[in-house]
């Protein structure tokens, strides 16, 4: 038999029959390549498993705590930066109005009261229009259409509640 089948047996870690073992042993006596393959196979299989230094789990706990602390700090700084930016932005936009109010308070108070009055009358008018519309709508839509609409709304509501529940019950850990 030529070299190739023996090499394949060794590379595949084939379980050999007694006859095949005899053939392989006789081939190993004359083939340096296969001898090296057989020896390295034995060495690899008998190599020891190396354990870490004692206290590995404790060191991991310390590292995990440090990681969590770093992430909490990172989050806190993020929130602080966000709040400061938002306050600065709002301040930048409302500063001219604040200055104007401070320089002529009576005119601004009159204008604000006029605006509130307008807002109130607009809401009232919109409410009247809506009530007329609601009174007229049942005449245009058949009862089954109402059932479909209500079912759709109920389904969307249920989906929303499930999504919120799943998000809230997600396992918490340090940031990925």
């Amino acid at each position, binding site marked *: 038999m030529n070299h190739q089948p023996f090499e394949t047996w060794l590379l595949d870690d084939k379980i050999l029959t007694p006859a095949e073992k005899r053939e392989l042993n006789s081939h190993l006596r004359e083939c340096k390549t296969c001898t090296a393959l057989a020896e390295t196979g034995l060495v690899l299989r008998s190599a020891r498993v*190396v354990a870490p230094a004692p206290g590995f789990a404790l060191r991991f706990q310390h*590292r995990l705590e440090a990681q969590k602390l770093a992430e909490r700090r990172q989050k806190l700084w993020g929130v602080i930066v966000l709040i400061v930016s938002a306050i600065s932005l709002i301040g930048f936009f409302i500063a001219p109005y604040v200055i104007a109010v401070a320089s002529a308070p009576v005119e601004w108070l009159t204008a604000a009261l006029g605006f509130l009055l307008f807002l109130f009358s607009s809401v009232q008018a919109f409410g009247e229009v809506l009530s007329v519309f609601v009174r007229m709508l049942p005449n245009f839509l058949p009862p089954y259409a109402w059932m479909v609409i209500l079912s759709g709304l109920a389904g969307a509501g249920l989906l929303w509640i499930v999504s919120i529940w799943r998000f809230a019950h997600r396992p918490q*850990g340090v940031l990925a």
Partner: protein
Amino acid sequence: MNEEQAWVAQAQQGDDEAFAKLVETYQTPVFNLCYRMLGEPELAEDAAQETFLRAYQHLHRYDQKRPFATWLLSIAAHYCIDRLRRRKFSMFSMDAEDDEGNSFEIPDMDAPSPEHEAITGQTNARVHAMLQELDTTDRAAVIMRYWYDYSEKEIAESLNLTVSAVKSRLHRARKELAGVWVEQEDDLLAEMERRHNESPAF
């Protein structure tokens, strides 16, 4: 559900004590894989710690149908492969800080310990040197095959390869290892001969 699956389920619910039990159970296989991959105990310690940290962070993604050990060793192997690839481009300096700049304690590997005794064995050193000659992915495949008795299918799943790719990588790696083994033997013989000739008795 066995004890290990119960720990995993509890850890997925945020139980840190359950995760600590998983760390205790798998510290040696994970450390051994990292050590065989990276070649140095200090780097292996750091890589093993990082592996457990990543496992902790991504525990919600773990599929209970898969063996936990396979999932964990897959994280370790990928981390080591990435680290070795990065090391090719930049000299890696090992100090007492991780990638994020957090300090951590490095164990004293010079202190006498069973691990220290194990890694000083001559055959172990030869195996270690041989492994470092291999391509990183081939090395991971060999370690999974011969230290953990993984099947070709399990290796393929862990390393995101096809079964045929794993088979061909294992064949190639075994041939390379045999080549290095022969070279080492020749060097040893040459050294013995040189000493023999230099000896004043002859």
